[in-house]
């Protein structure tokens, strides 16, 4: 049963509005941009928001509005990719542990205890730092640090489902384990996965922005929002818009992802014993 009242709150509507705006902006960026986001224009650098340059220009004279539009692609894709990968990995591992139990469960729980033992961001900094910044190590770091949460939750959910009569019935009629997992257990956890994935995305963006701040994140000249924030660090005292606009975009994106995740959670009435952030 879905509780639809949560979808009627202003918060949820606002969040959905922000998300759709960002996604449309990202998809249609090439059509919408007034300037080439990669082309420096030294004569018009560091301009304040105005008529020609809606959000002003950055230190190299590139149009900030165009960069924000293009940046949403990188930010969202990266977050989506990393959370998707983490969800898939976490689900696979969680299902394995929860469904088969016994020694796979013991091993996986031990592993997850170990991975949980090392604070996430320390781990990420170590991986992204030692293996050099770049997409592969960024993704690796994000996935390695986030699968544990997923697998734990999915494991509990699987255990719960496994005790349900319909699964027991399926076992009795000789349905193969793989079939049960893929056709019956995973679809039943779909709402949980959706919610977890949404919340994971906001956390990924936070992590990416932290790494970018430390110089270990997305590579230039990709106009990722968090990269734009760290680029603005030198200039933000006199040109606060350089920091506030991309920073505000990150904030709005995370806020709306959180809000949507939260609303979905309430609507489906799913509860997880975990900390969001």
């Amino acid at each position, binding site marked *: 049963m879905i509780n639809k009242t949560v979808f009627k709150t202003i918060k949820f509507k606002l969040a959905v509005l922000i998300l759709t705006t960002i996604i449309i902006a990202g998809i249609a960026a090439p059509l919408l941009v007034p300037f080439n986001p990669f082309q420096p224009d030294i004569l018009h650098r560091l301009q304040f928001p105005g008529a020609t340059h809606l959000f002003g220009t950055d230190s190299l004279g590139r149009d900030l509005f165009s960069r924000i539009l293009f940046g949403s692609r990188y930010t969202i894709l990266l977050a989506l990719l990393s959370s998707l990968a983490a969800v898939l990995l976490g689900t696979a591992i969680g299902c394995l542990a929860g469904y088969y139990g016994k020694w796979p469960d013991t091993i996986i729980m031990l592993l997850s205890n170990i991975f949980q033992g090392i604070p996430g961001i320390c781990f990420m900094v170590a991986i992204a730092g*030692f293996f050099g910044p770049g997409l592969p190590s960024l993704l690796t770091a994000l996935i390695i640090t986030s699968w544990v949460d997923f697998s734990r939750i999915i494991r509990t959910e699987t255990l719960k489902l496994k005790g349900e009569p319909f699964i027991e019935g399926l076992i009795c009629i000789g349905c193969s384990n793989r079939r049960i997992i893929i056709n019956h257990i995973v679809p039943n956890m779909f709402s949980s996965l959706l919610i977890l994935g949404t919340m994971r995305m906001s956390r990924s963006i936070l992590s990416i922005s932290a790494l970018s701040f430390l110089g270990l994140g997305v590579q230039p000249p990709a106009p990722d929002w968090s990269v734009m924030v760290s680029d603005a660090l030198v200039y*933000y005292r006199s040109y606060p818009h350089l920091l506030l606009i991309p920073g505000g975009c990150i904030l709005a994106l995370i*806020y709306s992802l959180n809000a949507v995740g939260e609303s979905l959670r309430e609507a489906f009435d799913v509860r997880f014993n975990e900390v969001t952030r």
Partner: protein
Amino acid sequence: MNMKMNFIVKRVLSVIPVLFGISIITFSIAFLAPGDPAEMTLDQNGIYFPTQEQIEQMRVTMGVNASWHSQYFSWIKKALYGDLGHSYHNKNSVLSELRMRVPVTLQLAVPALLLTGLGGIILGTLCALDPKTLPIRILSHLFDIFLATPRFLLALLLIFVMGEILRLLPTSGVTDYKGYLLPTMALSITTIAVVGRLVKNKLAEEIRKPYCFIALAHGIQHRQIVFLYALPNIILPIIAILGNFFGEILGGSIIIENIFALPGLGSMAIEAIRFRDYPLLQGYVLFTGCTYVLISLVLDLLLYLLNPKIRFEEY
């Protein structure tokens, strides 16, 4: 009584494989990372360039030429005796380096944790007390906003506003307690929001439970129900979660220490990465990992002993 001991012993023993695993991961990170520590040590500012033989020799002296397992075992053996090796780039022993850095981070993290716990619980309870009034609604929106703010953005704004414009608080340095105020704030505001919201939600959930409802029907006031009924019932799980936050705060301190220029564990980690200082990084990950594991162990045991439900079930 027997069951109690059983539980405690089991829980304590369960830490051992975890610690072991952490040590393996810690060690492997450094081992797998590209770049040659021997080369790094000898290569200085582009003025002097080592020959291949010198590099080879350095590898032998540093013990980085052996195979994975032999290096690991010699490392773990020494670590068990409290010797974590020596930093490559400043030659201090890792232990003394940790001894130097840990107090700084602790002075940052412990107040931040206290602030997180107290602030979160108090504000969350406030939210549950009177969810409809304007200040409380603003507060709960603030929670959502802080939850979405990257920590470094917050820190920068704090420096800019409190330090540079208002000139209220020092923005750097470790000369006295004032220097810790801004970083502690920057570190704990986001976590306060997380805990606050968690407390708020948990309380709301708890208040919907039958016993609170019945109490309401018995005529007990909402305020009393929140403080005497719902809050004590959620406080133990909240404390368990606060244990997780110690890890979060230790991690968050990397960024905060970097911004506020505090010579704590976090800046040590960044330094270690910059200089490919494996022993230092290993020390860092091992230390934070162990601290985290041990703290959750202590909290688990504490909760076990505190919870009357578990306590009495054994009689």
